[in-house]
């Protein structure tokens, strides 16, 4: 597991709702930065492919390359959705733990999920060659 994920788990092991919230906030910041990088890269890459194809008048090849890129980026979209779903659920889980409706031990698997989903985003971005924030 990545260093970042390890640090998150370390925080989770403190079993403190405040620490868990802090870790989730860090995860949210990472995902926001990842979304911004992905959107920017997707824009620049597509425009670059289209301009090159237009300049060389290889319109059909350009359209094919764009379609291939759009298929290739799909796993990043899915990974971001998964991470956002986990992060969106986290505050509710933490609140229920705080309210005593759930053992504080539940914070550990929750934040392990946050770490795993963020790692998945990292891997998906890396596979596309997108700079990881």
């Amino acid at each position, binding site marked *: 597991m990545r260093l970042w994920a390890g640090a998150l788990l370390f925080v989770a092991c403190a079993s403190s709702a405040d620490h868990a919230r802090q870790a989730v906030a860090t995860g949210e910041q990472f995902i926001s930065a990842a979304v911004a990088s992905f959107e920017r890269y997707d*824009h620049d890459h597509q425009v670059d492919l289209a*301009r090159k*194809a237009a300049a060389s*008048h290889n319109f059909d090849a350009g359209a094919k390359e764009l379609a291939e890129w759009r298929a290739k980026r799909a796993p990043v*979209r899915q990974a971001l*959705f998964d991470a956002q779903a986990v992060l*969106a659920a986290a505050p*509710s889980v933490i609140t229920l733990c705080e309210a005593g409706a759930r053992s504080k031990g539940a914070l550990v698997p929750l934040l392990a999920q946050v770490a795993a989903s963020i790692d998945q985003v990292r891997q998906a971005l890396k596979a596309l060659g997108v700079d990881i924030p």
Partner: protein
Amino acid sequence: MNGIGIALELLRELAEICEDAYTKGHTSQEISEALRVHYEKAAAAVRSLDRVLADNDAEADAILKDAKADGDPTKP
């Protein structure tokens, strides 16, 4: 763990939490509200990303379309 694995883990966790919360006196309305907020937040984030990606697609397609409409000056 892949996306589906994470989603299943999350659902399992949420199901356990809901069961515990209900047993310990939280109303089903409170629990469903927490879940609704969770899913709406995630769905809104993905809708926003999809809008940007669709704009990017449209811009790239327009570049190709315009260039094609201008024709290929190297060919007769």
